[in-house]
């Protein structure tokens, strides 16, 4: 399915931030903003909620810790107890390093997998983008148009008034 988008191209992050605020205040729904680097403050301007990834990270870490402790206690304490230098089978201080490393291991990889999954990042043969300059030096504000694109002239004016250096129309396969 293809969709029409109006693209406001901005040269500066501060101009973009004001434009985002003004465009939203004018009652226009912004589809997305594409930028070459993270623009601070855009989350609030766009109304993006704070990411809950840190909570996920905590649970991944706890999983790793629990797994590591279970693994070491089960293997050396119950499944095949070994006498090593006459020390207790379950010597918790000696289990700390592996427990710590696995906590980090699970946190990191769990986070990475979650991040890739929810953001939809995976290797692709082709990557169609709104504007190729969005990964170079331009900030692109995309606004979805209806089938007839009747709002385009009005949006062009609105974006230009808010400092867009150019406004384009683009058809994207969705």
């Amino acid at each position, binding site marked *: 399915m293809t969709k029409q988008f109006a693209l406001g191209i901005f040269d500066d992050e501060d101009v973009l931030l004001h434009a985002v605020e003004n465009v939203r205040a004018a009652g226009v729904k912004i589809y997305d903003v594409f930028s*070459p*680097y993270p623009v601070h403050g855009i989350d609030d301007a766009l109304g993006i909620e704070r990411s809950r990834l840190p909570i996920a990270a905590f649970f991944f870490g706890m999983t790793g810790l629990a797994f590591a402790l279970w693994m070491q206690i089960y293997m050396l304490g119950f499944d095949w107890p070994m006498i090593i230098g006459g*020390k207790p089978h379950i010597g918790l201080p000696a*289990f700390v390093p592996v427990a*710590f490393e*696995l906590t980090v291991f699970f946190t990191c990889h769990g986070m990475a997998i979650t*991040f890739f999954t929810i*953001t939809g990042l995976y290797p692709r043969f082709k990557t169609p983008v709104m504007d190729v300059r969005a990964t170079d*030096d331009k900030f692109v504000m995309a606004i979805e148009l209806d089938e007839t694109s009747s709002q385009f002239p009005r949006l062009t004016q609105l974006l230009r008034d*808010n400092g867009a250096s150019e406004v384009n129309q683009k058809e994207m396969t969705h």
Partner: protein
Amino acid sequence: MQHVSAIREPLVTGGKTLHDVTQDICYQVEAKPNLRWMAALSVALFFLGVFFYSVYRTVWYGIGEWGLNKTVNWAWDITNFVWWVGIGHAGTLISAVLLLFRQKWRSSINRAAEAMTIFAVICAAMFPVLHMGRPWLAFYVFPFQNTLGSLWANFNSPLLWDVFAISTYFTVSLVFWYIGLIPDFASIRDRAKGPIAKFSYSMLSFGWKGSAKAWSRYETVSLILAGVSTPLVLSVHTIVSMDFATSVVPGWHTTIFPPYFVAGAIFSGFAMVLTLMLITRVVFRLEDYITLEHIALMNKIMMVTGSIVGVAYITEFFIAWYSQVEFEQYAFINRATGPYWWSYAAMMTCNVITPQLVWFRRVRYSIGLTFILSIIVNIGMWFERFVIIVTSLHRDYLPSSWAMFSPSIIDIGLYVGTLGLFFTLFLLFAKFFPVINMAEVKTILKYTVDNGPTYNPEKAAHAHAHQPAIHGAPASAPVTYNQHD
């Protein structure tokens, strides 16, 4: 209203615009390989050949190919292992610790430093695996039930902790580095002309588009990865030091080892980062991104960690005397005055005296002197590990088994070979990957803050035509470029 910081200098010089950054960094990836790069790669590939030959000899004929004997049964292999792992630590320090401390200057060097970490850990991992003698059974170090029954791994052993530490460190560094690379791969993809480049960078960039939500998550992930990498990097060298510290060998059985090893690791790592960066900035013409200021800052970190290492050497010696343990005392006297006195002297000179030269401003800002210094520190840190390992072992409790160690040609081949492996990987990285984190450098270009809806398109267009090419700064901004301190 615009606020221009009067005291902070720009971290990137040359008045770069956002587009200039993309252009400068992508140029290397897009251009045909130049002659200097090809020449360097040929040398590295030659030494890689040496590495493969040495590996073949070690695996085919066994560990007897090395110079080890009954008394000195750990020598160059573990020295090289610890040396390489230590070098890796600077990369994580730059990418994680300096991120948490909001040291923005790290942006220009973190990509290459992290690459260095990954390649150094690969080189390091070669040694313990080859020392196993039967590397195809290397998976036995993981808690697999062995074929004869249900015997698991021994979790009380520091060598096993090392397995977990190094594998975690390697994979975490790799993931952290790759997530940082994704937006830059997207930049290259969107500029790519040829079908092969388009395809490969599209695959590598994972379909990154730079949408606001993705960036927000990206920053969260970076911060959390930095948060877990910071204790991780400290734990890795702590565990490496425990390979020695938990033993009962005089000279190894030392509680000071963990902090001392971590400081030494960062010290040698920064020396290697400096060596690599000084070459990279010249070969790839990145003088505006890796400025003299960066070199001076890295020199300062080298000096601090070098001084910690110096204090540790002296403390260790003092404690040996203070402990009143005869064997401990002998181990240290033997280090300094025994048959390996020269390695001890090399370690002391390179690691304790040379970093103190950095107190001089002229040394700190001199490219030539810094380069020489960084090489000396790397040599010194290699000797440190050699001193700890070989001099503690070669005279054990039984004088009749005292021995000396001399490396075989295969020992030397393996060490030089891993240098070849390291530089092959680094050169390939430098050619096909963006050596500087473009997205991050772009965030630090703008050192003005515009807060208030004062935008006037006509005025801005007019001002733009007459402005100097300093991004974001008004022509009248009080810019002070030349004051360093």
